[in-house]
Every structure is written in C-alpha cells, then in structure tokens.
C-alpha cells in the first residue's frame, strides 16, 4: 500500500537529550518571547502603512513606527531562532519534510527578512518623511515571511498533503486552515501593536502632545477594529481545522480553559474601549493574557495534529542534565546581565540628558 503514512520519515534514531515535555515547554516559552516582538514587527509594519494615510499626524506616526521597528525586527529574528530549534528536536521529521517540500519558498524567507530589514533602514533614515516606498516594500516582504511561516507550520502538521504537493499535483498553499490561520495571526499582531502604540504614546517623551494623542487614538482604534474582526476570523479558523481537531481542543481541559480565557480577554478589551473607557494598563494586561493563552491553545492544536501520527512521549531519552543545567544557569545569568545593563543604561541616558539640559 502506498499510503502517505509510509512517507513520514522515522524519528531520528538518536535519543532525545531531555524528556520531550521539556522541549515542549521551551517551544511554548520561547514562542511567547518571539511573538512579543513578531507582533510588533508584523502589526507595526501594517500600521506603518495604514497610518500614513491618516490625515491627523499620519506621517509622524508612520515614521515613529519605522524607528522602533528596526529594533523589533532584530529581536524578532533573535528570539525566533529558539522555538525553531526546539521544534526540530521533537517534530523534526515533520518540520524538515514540510520545509524541503516548500524548498525555495522557504529559503527565500531569509532573503526577504534581510531585504525587508534594510528597506526599513532606508525609510527610517530618509530625511523628512520621505522613503515611504521602502516602507511599503519592507511590509510586503515581511507579509511574505509571515505567510511562509504559517504555511510551513500548517504543512508540517498535514502529511497527507506532502506527496501531492511534492509531485506538483496541488499547490503548496492548498493546506487546511491556511487562510484563516494567517488572518488570525495578522489581526492579533495588529491588535497587539495597537495597544503598544497607546503605551508608547504615553512613554515616549520626545513626541509632541498632538502626535502622542493621535498615536494613542490610532492605536486604540487599531486594537478595537482588529479584535472585532477576530469575532469572525477566530471561529472561521477554529472550525476550518475540521471536526477531528476542534473536538480534541474542546475535550482537552487545557485547550478549552485557555481558549475561553483568551477570547474573554480580547472581548473584555473591546468592551473597555467601547463602553467603560479604557486604560493602557488594563489593555496591556489583557492583550498579554490573550496572547499567552492563545499560544497555549496553539500548542494543544499542534499536539492534536501530530498525535494522529506519532507520540513524542514514547521517544527514547538519554538525558544530558549537566548541559541542560548549564543552559539554565546561563539563561538566568543572561537575564541578570540584561536587567543590570538596561537599568544602568536608563540612568545613564537620564543623567546625560540632565547634564546637557543643565
């Protein structure tokens, strides 16, 4: 029988260097870190374009986003490496296969990031408010990156599609739930960046009060509009996965609890904005809760797909605890060093500014 199941590669014969659950934990943990920055990069890029057409200080807002996004792109790449690393340990046979099937489309992601990054600088460094075309080009490239990431993730979970795509019978984009998944991520990124812009407008002292006010309103509307649209896109995505998958999410206590928390957090934010009057603090907490909850739900969905073919908890383990402990110590060390450096940097910047202002 030439079933697609025969074409799923066997797991690597080398044992896992730690129990599988530990890698799953780090996939979720580092993905949350990555999404903090990825949301700003992607959502910020879209809003950088949309804001430009706003009458009310649109150019200023657009350029301000371009300025901070050169940092967030760097951090998006840096934090994106970790979840990709850990997913390869547990689900390598799926992830490598879908990557190879995508081939150039997958590899071009990196060229798109590099070019997009430089285009961002061209927009950011252009005098006055020129160079918008570079900003548009960068956004298109980053949208491509997002689409390919979503495509590869979806394809890795649907091995029944591999052979038809590999033999050019169907398109690589002909995978289940691709469009709603992409839109769902995109809207979430926009909503997240909307709240970030609200906070940024309050914290960034160099903005004039008019620009700060315009940015605040723009951020609020972006969050509100994007989250409202999720009321349509969210269920579309949920059901597009098919009965087999969504029934597994509902029947899994972790899945259903975090799904409800995530949806409630988003809706509560919308309610605050529309009825009660929002506060940046409340919305920031809610959007973080929504994001973390949805990453956990995402994990339940991932497991629902992969567990059809393979149980990662049954893999042989030959633990390298010593190396793992070294990793943990260094991770804590990194956080301490970064904390001290940021704190010191904050005071240094403040002191120098005060010294200059006399």
């Amino acid at each position, binding site marked *: 029988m030439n079933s697609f199941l025969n*074409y799923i*590669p066997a797991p*690597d*014969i080398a*044992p*896992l*260097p*730690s129990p599988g659950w530990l*890698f799953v934990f*780090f996939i979720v943990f580092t993905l949350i870190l990555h999404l903090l920055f990825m949301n700003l990069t992607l959502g910020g890029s879209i809003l950088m374009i949309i804001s430009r057409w706003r009458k009310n200080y649109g150019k200023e807002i657009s350029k301000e986003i371009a300025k901070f996004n050169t*940092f967030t792109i*760097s*951090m998006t*790449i*840096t*934090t994106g*490496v*970790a979840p990709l*690393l*850990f997913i*390869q*340990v547990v689900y*390598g*046979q799926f992830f*490598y*296969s879908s*990557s*190879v*099937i995508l*081939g*150039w489309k*997958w*590899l071009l*992601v*990196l060229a798109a990031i*590099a070019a997009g*990054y430089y285009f961002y*600088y061209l927009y950011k460094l252009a005098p006055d408010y020129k160079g918008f075309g570079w900003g548009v080009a960068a956004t298109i490239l980053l949208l491509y990156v997002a689409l390919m990431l979503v495509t590869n993730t979806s394809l890795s979970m649907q091995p029944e599609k*591999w*052979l038809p795509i*590999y*033999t050019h019978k169907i398109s690589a984009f002909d995978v289940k739930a691709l469009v709603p998944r992409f839109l769902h991520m995109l809207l979430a990124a926009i909503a997240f960046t909307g709240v970030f812009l609200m906070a940024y407008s309050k914290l960034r002292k160099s903005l004039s009060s008019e620009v700060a006010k315009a940015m605040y309103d723009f951020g609020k509307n972006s969050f509100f509009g994007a989250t409202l649209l999720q009321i349509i896109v969210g269920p579309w995505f949920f059901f597009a996965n098919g009965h087999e998958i969504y029934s597994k999410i509902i029947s899994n206590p972790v899945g259903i609890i975090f799904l409800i928390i995530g949806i409630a957090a988003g809706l509560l934010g919308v309610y605050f904005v529309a009825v009660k009057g929002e506060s940046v603090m409340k919305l920031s907490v809610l959007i973080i809760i929504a994001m973390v909850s949805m990453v956990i739900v995402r994990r339940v969905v991932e497991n629902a797909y992969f567990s059809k073919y393979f149980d990662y908890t049954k893999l042989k383990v*030959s633990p*390298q605890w*010593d*190396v*793992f402990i*070294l*990793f943990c110590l*260094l*991770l804590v060390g*990194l956080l301490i*060093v*970064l904390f001290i*450096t940021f704190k010191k*940097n904050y005071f*240094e*910047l403040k*002191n*120098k500014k005060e010294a200059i202002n006399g």
Partner: protein
Amino acid sequence: MDYPLWVIPGIGGAMVIAVISVFHVFISHFAVGMGLYTALAEKKAMNSDNPEAMKFVKRTSGLILYVSAIIGAITGVGIWFSIALVHPAGTSALIHNFVWGWAIEWIFFVLEIVAILIYYYTWDKVSAKFHNFVAWLYFIGAYLSLVIINGIITFQLTPGKWIKTHKFWDGFFNPTYFPSLVGRTGVCLMLAAIFATLILSFVKDMDVKTSFGKFTGIFGIVGIILTYIGFYWWAKAIPANVAGEFLGGNETLSEFFRNAAILGVITFIVLFIWTIIIPKRMNIIVAIVLLILGQAAFGYYEFTRERARKPFVIRDYMYSTGVLVNEVEKLNEKGILSKVKWANPLNKKDKLSIGEAVFKAECMICHDWYHFNSKPLFSSISDDPDDNLDILDSLDGNNLMPPFVGTDKEKEALAFYLAKLAKEREKEGKNE
C-alpha cells in the same frame, strides 16, 4: 535519508549551502573580532585628546551593526535553514546531540544582538565608561557564540570518543576543538583588522591614521600568527589518514590548503607594510586588496575543512548521503530506496526510473547534473552500463567517496541511468 529530497538541478543543494556559508563565515568571524577591536580601540580613543579618534571608532562600530548584526545574523540562520533543506538527516543528528549546546549559543546570540543595539544607539548619550562596558558585553557574547559553535563544527570532522560513547562533552571537546578555536580566534582578529582598514583608508586626520593604523596592524598580525599556530596544530590533531588528503594525498585538497597558507603570508606582508611601516598611505585600494587576500586565505581553509570531511557529514557516523555507517549492511539487503522513499515518490518500477531515484538518493547531494561538482562525475562515467558497474564497485577504495549502498538490482539500475546520462552529455557536446 527518509526525508523528501530538495531537487534543484543546475544549482545543487551543496552550492546553496556554500554560497550562504561563504558570506556567513566571513561576516561572523569579522563580527567577533570587531567586538574586541572596538572595545580596545574605544579605550584607546578615550585616552586620546583628539576627538577624531572617537569618530573613527564610532564609524567602525557602524560596520558591526549594519553588516554583522543584520547579514551576519540572517546568514547564520540561513546556513541552518539550508543544511536542513539539503541534509535534514545530518541536521537532525547534530540537533539531537547538541540541542542544548545550540540553546546556549542562542543565549550568547541574544546578548550579542542586544549589546550591539544598545552600543550603537547610545553613542554620545551615555558615559564613555558605560559605553565601553557595553562593547565588552558585545564581544563576550560574540566570542562565546564562537566557543560553542566551534565544538559542533569540529565534531563533524573529528567526532573522537563520541563515536563510542555518544556523550555530549566527548563530541564537543573533540580532538580538533582547541586547535580550531585558536585558529578561528586568529581569523577573527585578522578579519576585523582588515575591515578596519576600509574605514582607516578614508580617515583624513594623519594622527588618527598613524596611531590607529599601527593599532590595527598589530591587531591583525597577532591574528595571523594565532591563525597559523591554530591551523598547524589543527592539521596535526586530525587523524593521519584524513590529514594526508590535504597534505599531499589529494591534489585539489592539498592545493586548497597550500593556497590558504600562501595567501595568509601575503596578507601578513601587505598588512604589515601599510599599517606599521607606512600607515599614512593606507588607501581604499590596499584595503580592498587586503579584503580579497584575507577572505581568500580563509575561504581556502574552510573549503579544505569541508572537503576533508568527505564522504561523511559526521565522520565515521553518517555519510554525506545521510546513510548511517551502521545501516549499510541492512540497506545492501533491503535496498537504498527502502529508506529514501522520496527519491521515487510515484513508486515507478522501470529500470531507468529506479536508476534515477538511486542517483537522487546517493549521488545528487554532491554531484549536480550540470554544474556543481558534475565534472568528476562526467569524466568517470561511461555510456556502457557495465563500465559504470565497475566504477560503482571501485568506490570502496576511494577515500573521498562513500561506498555504493543498495541491492545489486539498484546498482544495475544506477549504472544503466549513468550510461544514459553519459550518452546525453556526449550528444550535447557534439551539438555544441
């Protein structure tokens, strides 16, 4: 290899890896060296009364951000993406053994990127002392990344005791770990000095040009000396049968290694003259010549190392084809296509299709049909399948080629397919 195959005729997967890697190795070593260079140069400028000195350091630090933090980071991830596309089995084997090593490298990567962003954007906005501290943070992050990745790269060539124990540290601190670390540290310093000459050549202030010219010269020369010590030691630390290939055994490999050594000496001489003896005459032409010389010297070394590993991805453990050394016997019985199912996804049964599938499974990774490394292939094969069978049988005796793995039927099919390729090539040759 159980995985789907990335078939890109005319380019070849190995070529894709090579192109990305060439960029990355130059930029990454430069980025590490430049960290130390900037930290020391900034200290030197802090002690100088000439404000031009600090301007020079600021400009060189821009190189790190715009070149290394962007292209360096992306090509680094690029190597990883491309090896996963071309050789998922090898990548998976490395990740299964060294994932926590990579995770540690990621920590240093985060430190490196955060530090360079803070460093570049706080010029003149914080105290000089704190600013210099951040330069050191950047250098520590960058250097420790090298300390980690060096363990994984050297492991592929000389896995040492790991072959028996499969223990992380046995693989990491393998026989060529320390020699390679010394050599690569030297390369970092050399490349940083060479890149700094690009900025130096535009400096108008003669005091800065002289004092930082000498500083750059000493930095680079120490680098080249370390490089020589490291790679001499490296060549000695490699098992004799492998080192023999690039120390006279194989013509191409020996030429690569010799070129690396000779170009290194010429780089040393040019650098010495234009930075120590006549630093005021440093100009963009000399800087570009140095850039080409230095990169070529290092490039030849990297190709030597990569080629010396052949026919393995991980020496004595996994062949370039993704076949494990310990599964050869089993596959000779069951057939290579029982493992590499994706080479024949439509499960065709005719001899030619099977031959083509075996070619994709065992040959394509190193020999593309058209360009990449196709010359040795087409100069060996013949339009007579029987001759090709003899060639396939003789692979056991070739140190740089893996043995043929598979059943006799598969071997015959491959010989048949190779004969067809040879005939086609002959026809094309006549038409031209």
